[in-house]
């Protein structure tokens, strides 16, 4: 007779050996580093060009994002339509994303089409023309999108909480207004592009399955090895954050709103601090996954929200923040805040039970194991390690921390970093 009350035996995931598949490092003729993880089951490939061209480098609000967005909207020989048609004819996707430190251009395509697409990418990275009309359409549509977003409490809350933590002058704290979009000029974009793309600093990440006759580095050398990139070391210089004095904010964005967007944030140490990896485990316990304290209490016990999460912002600098985010019913926002602080205090006061900690360890390791599945995921891990100027041992140290961190360690971390009085608190209805 089957005993359904008893769980089948499990192997604790935290005891499984976990290997990060190595990535190859090469250097193009112009010293542009290339990291690649080739392999997989599908004949698809992804190449990412990471430029040091994030909003940290702009001298006018919005320039970095506009350049990144408009990279594929015209060159001296092709207009935006022709560029899109070329990409789409080969079923390729070209994403551009602008972050605080970096701007990333990502090409994803069937492997068989990579050789015909690389010359086009070269053209975009060397000869983008930023036509006036394209800029004007971008300005208009970005302003309209902003108008819609400003009606959403979560969007408004996300912008404001960062300004309390970092100040509006900091790249992590600033945001764009309709006027910022209006003030963009073509000459701003061209200047930024020349400096940070044409003559900028680039790192390439590639992953996927190429035909046996093709290898990635010679191909990349052919199209990118002669570009005037990486001539000088370009280091990130971050301004010091300027924290808000006031800690509690309540804003009515929509008088008829039925929910409040709640954000809590406190300044936090960066990845290189010896406490950081322990804090990642603590974060999981606190609000990092579905079985966390916040989710169990505020969603699964009280039903105040559809979801609540905590996370540590993934910033390249050592200035970051620990954040809690949820949308809760308007009438239960105060109750939700009380419960968040209650859970913080519990972590500061009580030791976590072994069983709960084992669950968090197993969950985290299982999640990482699943996340190392396939070349695209593996290169993403490597990208994070390399851009943060860490190395392979960081990965293995973080695995060790997940396996070995003690209840006392976690309580110490909570007492150090999860002090309710250090949090900025914001509710936007």
């Amino acid at each position, binding site marked *: 007779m*089957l005993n*359904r*009350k008893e*769980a*089948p035996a*499990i*192997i*604790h*995931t935290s005891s*499984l050996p976990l290997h990060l598949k190595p990535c190859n490092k090469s250097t193009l003729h112009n010293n542009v580093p290339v990291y690649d993880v080739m392999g*997989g*089951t*599908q*004949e*698809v490939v992804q190449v990412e060009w990471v430029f040091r061209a994030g909003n940290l480098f702009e001298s006018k609000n919005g320039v970095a994002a506009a350049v990144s967005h408009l990279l*594929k909207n015209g060159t001296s020989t092709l207009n*935006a*339509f022709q560029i*899109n*048609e070329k*990409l*789409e*004819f*080969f*079923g390729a996707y070209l994403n551009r994303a602008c972050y605080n430190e970096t701007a990333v251009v990502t090409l994803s395509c*069937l492997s068989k089409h990579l050789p015909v697409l690389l010359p086009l990418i070269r053209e975009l990275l060397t000869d983008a023309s930023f036509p006036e009309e394209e800029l004007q*359409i971008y300005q*208009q*549509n970005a302003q*309209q*999108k902003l*108008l*819609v977003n400003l*009606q959403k*409490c979560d969007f408004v809350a996300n912008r404001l909480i960062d300004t309390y933590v970092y100040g509006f002058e900091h790249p992590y704290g600033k945001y764009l207004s309709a006027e910022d979009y209006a003030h963009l000029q073509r000459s701003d974009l061209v200047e930024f592009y020349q400096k940070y793309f044409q003559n900028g600093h680039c790192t390439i990440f590639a992953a996927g399955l190429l035909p046996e006759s093709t290898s990635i580095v010679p191909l990349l050398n052919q199209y990118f090895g002669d570009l005037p990139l990486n001539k000088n070391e370009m280091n990130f210089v971050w301004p010091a954050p300027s924290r808000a004095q006031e800690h509690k904010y309540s804003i009515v964005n*929509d008088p008829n*709103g039925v*929910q409040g967007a709640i954000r809590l944030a406190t300044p936090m140490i960066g990845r290189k601090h010896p406490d950081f990896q322990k804090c990642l485990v603590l974060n999981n316990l606190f609000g990092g*996954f*579905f*079985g966390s304290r916040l989710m169990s209490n505020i*969603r*699964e016990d*009280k*039903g*105040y929200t*559809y979801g609540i999460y905590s996370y540590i912002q993934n910033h390249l600098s050592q200035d970051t923040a620990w954040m809690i985010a949820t*949308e809760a*019913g308007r009438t239960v926002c105060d109750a939700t805040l009380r419960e968040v602080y209650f859970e913080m205090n519990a972590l500061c006061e009580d030791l976590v039970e072994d069983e709960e900690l*084992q*669950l968090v360890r*197993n*969950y985290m390791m*299982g*999640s990482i*194991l*699943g996340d190392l*599945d*396939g070349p*695209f995921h593996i290169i993403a891990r490597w990208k994070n390690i390399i851009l943060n100027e860490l190395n392979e041992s960081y990965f293995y140290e973080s695995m060790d921390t997940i396996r070995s961190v003690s209840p006392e360690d976690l309580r110490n971390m909570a007492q150090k970093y999860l002090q309710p009085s250090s949090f900025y608190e914001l509710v936007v209805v």
Partner: protein
Amino acid sequence: MVKFDRFSLSNGLRVLVHRDETTPMAVVNVMYDVGARDEDPSKTGFAHLFEHLMFGGSVNIPDYDEPLQMAGGENNAYTTNDLTNYYIQIPAENLETAFWLESDRMLSLAFSKKSLDVQRKVVCEEFKEHYINKPYGNAWHEMRRLAYKVHPYQWMTIGKELRHIEEATLEDVKSFFFKHYRPVNAILVLAGNVDSDRVLALAEKWFGGIPSGEKYIRNIPQEPEQQEERKLELRADVPLDAFYRTYHMGARMSDVYYAQDLLSEILSGGGSSRLFQALVKEKQLFSNIDCFHFGSVEPGLFTIQGKLVQGVAMEVAEKAIDEQLNILLQDGISAEELEKVKNKTESLIAFEDMSVMNRANSLAFYELMGEPNRMNEELDRYQAVSANELMEAAHHLLRPSNANTIHYLKN
């Protein structure tokens, strides 16, 4: 090519196994043949609410999530108008934990009052977050009501109104469970680092003893062919005017579906698509425009929607869309344009199939449709669409009498 083994247990549960040894993980996917279309019109949103209750403990296991997380697993679920799907990713070593959990909740739920009370609130917050507290959040409620007069696709999976969710009772929950959540109405797919012999043994062990249940025979009123164009004007406190139009399209497994799907790519599948190029870039009447559909199992809605540039009159914007559709209908498409959207589709399928989870989910879906092999034939079906077929499909689809239009205007 996705290879799989397929067998059935004596209680009618269908089991499919797709092996991929390149991953250390196993995926367990359980699909139930029930969606929002199977709901009572006075109790809408129930299939989705029920999905939440599936995590509230089963007859022998008080908590579903904890033991799964302890075994290093992650899970989630979704409900559509057509079906409900639950999926787990777990290190292959701990596969049996997933069998234990999924079989116990197929055997019977705990039917806890506390879980119902809490999840009603959670789902109400989900409703508010996505459909009340967002600009344009009600547009699709209204569009479904406009386009379907008879068929239960006239409501969204979240439900028609909060009240239906608030009024759900434990009796409703029980009868829904025993009607729909039986082995005979379910499909189990195992994918990843698993082998068929072991899966079969585990399936027999954990699922074999569950009473088969009665096969649910769907008896849904079919939507009569629409005879004349329908229009609706909505006003709300939104910052921009928005345009919504739908046309009734073919069912997911019908022949015409493939041509219509390619047509949506031609109209707005990227920066070189027709509507984007003409209306966002050249004429600058819209700040964005999208053409899409939901791949519905029964005849669905082919949709064109976009937000107008401030200052543009709705009539002008609408006329410009009609003009583009007429150009397409009169001039047809070029061989190159057709090849482009086929290439895009090939690429899309390759990227989708990278994930073991997606492969498991697709297999379950095609099995639900009664044609698991179809999973490996989809690309050929797209490739086989000729320019003539595509134009024929476009002419039939884009008839004015088949159109439902909403002008969503700012106050």
